[in-house]
């Protein structure tokens, strides 16, 4: 009780890092991958958990001309298939590739669940909608590793998320292997590397340098 | 001993047990006599040793060796002892006589026992339970003692139930005016009317009830089999759950609007109470009301009037007490609604 009463605002927030590997699989071979992941991951007896999320990315940038290039992105996501689940804001830092000894991308990561009026709220704070998409796919976990296999859909008309309004982006599913953990747990990288090895040659999960992608 | 022509097995068993006991005392007597004789014999040997050690040496050895041995060898020794002296011989003869007498009693008792035993037929097994007692490893299974215990309890319960029945049958207290309890014959058909209503009829009834009450949303589900669970939301004031058996109200629970009747796994939870004192109180009153409006002959009217009464709580927080004109009494709002007028009263202002 006391701890909660004493200045909740001063509670230190342990900086969380996301360790990330990415890859993709062609739609035609998705089921093979799902089958393999089901075998590799926990809860093999259940059918894989699916998700259908709408994500909108909001941008806040300085209005002064000198700092035009600076901006902050907040990713606001909510589940379309579970209306009672709360929306959440995700802040992702710049992904660091690091040296050869590090197996994964590392980026700062902050997930905050919030009330559904978050979109209006951010707009009022000065954020602007940058882009949005719908992600549909499956989600697995093994220990604290999380694997998502999902397809990205563009919204043909803004604001409508029904299936007829969705246009698939490319002909592949994005595959992401990630762990969110406090900073400095480098051995996670080894675990993730080992896991990624087991998905080869179906998918090769790599640390993709986001700066080089155009 | 004596065999009367008609003896129950129990009596027979008792008789044989008695005989066995007799036999045992007889055998005990024999052993006692024997040990007495031997000790005398040994005494006499040791006194002899001083005078005539060589002659007695062999017999002492025998006696020492045979101290723990059988009756037959003992008898031989007795025989060897007789030669010693006239005085001794007389003593030995007396011992032998008593021994013989005891042995005769034993053989007599034994033949008696045999006779009685002959009459004993095999034990008739009444049920499978009896075989349990034959299980040699009954120490490993606790079933038999448990069965006995259970048997004892059922007996006891039966007895108490009988007593209760006699006491209650003298008491003619009647809770309802329903003729069902006074003349069972005539009203046989009345019970099914109340609680043997087909589910479809209950559903349509509840649906109509929902339609006719603007302030209330009523839904019915059947998570417990045939019993209907009616969930009532009254404005933004309260939620109630009513368990119906047919069209009979069996259980009422009232909670606050921000509370839920769902357990974590989505099941309906009819047991837990509200965390607010107000709704705990109202639950008590609602139970009283469900009894007050109970009418097995016209179940629809009973439920309708109960629901109407419950609707009176829509002004739970806004209406002052009809008697004292205040909102709060003991920091509680008026939690009682009159059965007829639905006027709000505090619990203590009812009188």
């Amino acid at each position: 009780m006391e701890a909660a009463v004493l200045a909740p605002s001063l509670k230190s927030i342990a900086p969380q890092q996301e360790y990330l590997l990415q890859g993709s699989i062609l739609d035609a071979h998705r089921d093979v991958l799902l089958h393999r992941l089901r075998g590799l991951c926990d809860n093999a007896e259940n059918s894989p958990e699916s998700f259908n999320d709408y994500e909108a990315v909001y941008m806040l940038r300085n209005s002064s001309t000198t700092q035009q290039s600076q901006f902050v992105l907040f990713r606001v996501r909510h589940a379309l298939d579970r209306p009672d689940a709360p929306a959440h804001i995700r802040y992702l830092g710049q992904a660091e590739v690091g040296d050869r000894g590090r197996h994964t991308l590392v980026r700062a990561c902050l997930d905050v669940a919030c009330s559904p009026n978050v979109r209006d709220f951010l707009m009022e704070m000065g954020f602007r909608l940058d882009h949005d998409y719908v992600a549909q796919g499956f989600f697995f976990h093994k220990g604290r590793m999380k694997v998502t296999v999902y397809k990205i859909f563009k919204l043909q008309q803004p604001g409508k998320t029904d299936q007829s309004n969705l246009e698939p982006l490319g002909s592949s599913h994005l595959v992401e292997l990630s762990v969110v953990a406090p900073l400095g747990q480098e051995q996670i990288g080894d675990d993730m590397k080992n896991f990624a090895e087991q998905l080869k040659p179906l998918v090769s999960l790599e640390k993709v340098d986001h700066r080089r992608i155009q | 001993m004596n065999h009367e022509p008609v003896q129950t097995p129990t009596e027979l068993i008792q008789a044989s047990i008695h005989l066995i006991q007799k036999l045992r005392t007889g055998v005990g007597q024999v052993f006692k006599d024997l040990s007495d004789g031997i000790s005398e014999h040994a005494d006499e040997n040791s006194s002899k040793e001083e005078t005539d050690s060589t002659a007695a040496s062999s017999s002492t050895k025998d006696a020492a060796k045979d101290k723990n041995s059988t009756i037959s060898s003992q008898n031989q020794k007795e025989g060897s002892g007789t030669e010693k002296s006239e005085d001794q011989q007389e003593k030995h003869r007396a011992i032998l006589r008593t021994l013989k007498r005891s042995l005769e009693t034993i053989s007599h008792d034994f033949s008696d026992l045999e006779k009685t035993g002959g009459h004993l037929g095999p034990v008739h097994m009444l049920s499978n339970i009896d075989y349990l007692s034959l299980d040699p490893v009954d120490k490993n299974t606790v079933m038999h003692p448990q069965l006995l215990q259970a048997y004892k309890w059922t007996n006891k319960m039966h007895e108490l139930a009988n007593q209760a029945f006699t006491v209650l049958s003298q008491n003619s207290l009647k809770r309802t005016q329903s003729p069902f309890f006074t003349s069972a014959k005539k009203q046989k058909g009345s019970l099914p009317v109340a609680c043997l209503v087909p589910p479809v009829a209950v559903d349509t009834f509840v649906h109509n009830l929902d339609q006719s009450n603007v302030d209330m949303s009523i839904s019915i589900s059947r998570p417990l089999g045939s019993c209907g669970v009616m969930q009532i939301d009254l404005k933004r004031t309260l939620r109630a759950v009513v368990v119906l058996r047919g069209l009979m109200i069996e259980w009422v629970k009232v909670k606050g609007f921000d509370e839920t009747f769902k357990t974590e796994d989505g099941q309906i939870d009819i047991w837990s109470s509200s965390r607010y004192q107000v709704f705990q109180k109202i639950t008590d009153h609602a139970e009283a009301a469900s009894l007050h409006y109970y009418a097995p002959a016209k179940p629809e009217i009973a439920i309708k009037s109960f629901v109407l009464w419950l609707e009176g709580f829509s002004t739970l927080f806004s209406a002052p007490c009809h008697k004292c004109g205040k909102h709060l009494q003991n920091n509680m709002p008026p939690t009682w609604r009159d059965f007829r007028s639905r006027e709000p009263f505090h619990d203590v202002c009812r009188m």
Partner: protein
Amino acid sequence: MGVSCVYDYPVPDGRSGAQVVDVLQKQVETMGAYKTGNFHIDCETYQSVMLNSPKTLHILHNSEHPASCFAILDSGNTLVADTLFNGLMSNLKNYYQARKGAKIESKGQRYQLADFVLKIGSVSLAGSFKGILVEVEYSPSLVAMECWNLMKELLQSIVGNIAETPPQTLKPRMDETFTPTMAMLQYLEHFNNFRNKAAMSQPAR
């Protein structure tokens, strides 16, 4: 969470805040309320930097909802989020900066009286005492309109005639289902009043 009303309890001249709080606590205890621990509400204010239109953002925490944080904009638009929202704010420090010395908080004893929750808190701005806020919550009810008269009866026996009308912030939303946000808005209004008063008295000295 039921309807709650927050009132600024005036401290008469010549008496210290602690004395008044003490009197209030005695009074509440004689009514039969019993202590159920402490409570704590704090508010930090952020000012936008270099945005086209200047904006103010208040971040409030309530010990009644220890895992949540309430972000309130000037318009009253409120976001309820995890306490991790503070971490998001630190990522926005180029755009929103905390106003110095503007941290204001109310803390004190929490009492339970039947279904009522009473909170008597002393308000301090940057460490110095500013006033007393009394919060009365009627947990079972969710609509202020319905239970206002009932609450008024109890409120008047504690804070007297200040509770003649519902709190200003609550008035337009009397018929809405009450949410924790509404209580926080009331606190924010009081906090802002305290700050303005402090700002007015400051230059005078």
